[in-house]
């Protein structure tokens, strides 16, 4: 489930409020979105992918809150990363165009 919106990283664009398919977030009074309905999170990672500032962390566990802190996530290098792997963001190449996509398909066909 969505665990964290980093206040130090958030650029207050409210993209996450827009794109969450299950409407988990509310706009915050200070501009930083609020995780208002955490249990509605379906753990699809889309908010993290659309966040331009790598300010969000979705824990893989779909059933229970993990209770993480920004410090521990920073220390483990777990903030952001998915966007980079998918190849979204300035100067990145989308993974969809990766030559491995074809190679894997070629290998998978019996």
């Amino acid at each position, binding site marked *: 489930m969505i665990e964290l919106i980093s206040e130090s990283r958030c650029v207050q664009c409210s993209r996450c409020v*827009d794109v*969450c*398919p299950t*409407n988990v977030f509310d706009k915050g009074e200070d501009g930083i979105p609020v995780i208002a309905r955490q249990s509605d999170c*379906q753990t699809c990672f889309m908010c993290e992918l659309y966040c331009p500032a790598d300010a969000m962390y979705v824990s893989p566990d779909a059933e229970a809150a993990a209770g993480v802190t920004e410090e521990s996530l920073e220390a483990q290098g777990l903030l952001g990363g998915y966007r980079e792997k*998918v190849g979204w963001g300035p100067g990145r190449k989308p993974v969809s165009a990766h030559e491995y996509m074809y*190679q894997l398909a070629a*290998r998978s066909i019996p």
Partner: protein
Amino acid sequence: MTIQEAEQTWAGGLRLEGDVLVIGGGPAGTWAALTAASHGARVVLADKGYCGTSGATAPSGTGVWYVEPDREAREEARQSRFGLGGRLAEEDWMNRVLDRTYENMNRLSGFGYPFPKDEAGRPYRRGLQGPEYMRLMRRLVQKAGVTILDHSPALELLGDAHGVGGARGVRTQTGEAWEVRAGAVIIATGGCAFLSKALGTNVLTGDGYLLAAEAGADLSGMEFSNAYGISPVFSSVTKTAYYRYATFYYEDGTEVEGAGSARGRSVIARQLLAGRQVYARLDKAPEDVKPLLRVGQTNFFLPFDRAGIDPFTDLFPVTLRLEGTVRGTGGIRIADESCRTAVPGLYAAGDAATRELICGGFTGGGSHNAAWAMSSGSFAGEGAAAYAHSLGPLAGRRELKGLSSTTVTAASAGDRSDRPKEHIRAVQEEVMPYDRNLFRTEAGLRASVGRLDGIWRDIRSGASSLGAHAVQAREAAAMTATARWMYRSGLARTETRGMHKREDYPEQDSGQHYRLRSGGLDEVWVQPEPLRKEVAAQ
């Protein structure tokens, strides 16, 4: 509800008029909107979540049933799952879908989808990455001039004696009501996975089936509704295809005999039912394939990386998450090649519609479903645009009324606002357990049907408020109705065919080589629908 009461409440909300209203913004909905717009229709697309991230396709990669128009390749493609699906597919429909999918995938190339290149430098078009695909589709839909309403679930269709002419619902982020009047409505709301949290499926609660049934449409193939995907216990990611590289183990490291991703899922289910945790390890993946796998399905590895597990070398506990009709094949019955339903003005596309036409009683993730979404979406877009244009200039003056089966009132739900939650839990209790849905028996199905009928009566005895609360109440009603069509159809099919497994009738019965239509709200009915002769002959 009196219509006047409702009208007063709706006044002040957003009112739009168009030729075609598309409900749902996944692949089927966006192809429908794009195609209708390209045929000159004014189109409104209302998505329950956000068009571009909603639904099962958006978060992950998917194969597509894309086959070169080569005679042998097409024949192989048609035959590959024909038997697996219980011989309920139709050659004509497979051909149409193969043709349109080929065309649409090639168009996606032109629209700028970055297909990878094969060895000869040609674009390789047999798969799509959901985030990239759906972000592009949203952009194309916007560019085509379609009005997109995000976070705008539909609560009821509008209609008159001549058919369907619009819908209304609520904008969940503002609480404002919306109403769209349109000559034709396309339901592209996806299937129903019963809020199981299987990746991307929690917006898929069968809402479109209920909307269609309330308008008088019927369904088909609802017995093919027991798809379960393999996922780690600690994760939502159900990418069952990758488990072809897995071996399954008990806690002590001995192998689970017969377990597998394709035909061995039942073995896993039986162990889990018996209270034995099953573990997996992707130890069949050749060394040189591992880096390819990491790229092919990026988010498959995300949960493992975050949990500090190497799935190629470490054992991890697995479970089976219900995907219901999302990767089953049942849905709204399609009446002709324009993807219209039995109700004038109402069309269905994607997982909301039956996929028996191309894969009978069995499908998996992606592939056929992805092909069906983009082709049925564009068939429905063409059909709906033509129908809307045929209505003439006075169509906008129709007197329409709400078609909801549950009473909708302006009052708040008050002290019973937790009722939908209770109903949802009660339905999940009937459809999630493997020994009720995966391994079906007459006694089990009958008991479930009795309890589901009780839940339905309770829903019908109460009212639902017009605001954001109504969304959950509608989801509860849709899930209950879906489960009732599923299990009544499951009772009627006293054999094992496609993905429908009857413990008490383990063999396929040649006497039941037909489809099952179903429908009804308070009284659910099921009846056999004979296959066309030329189809049955195959």
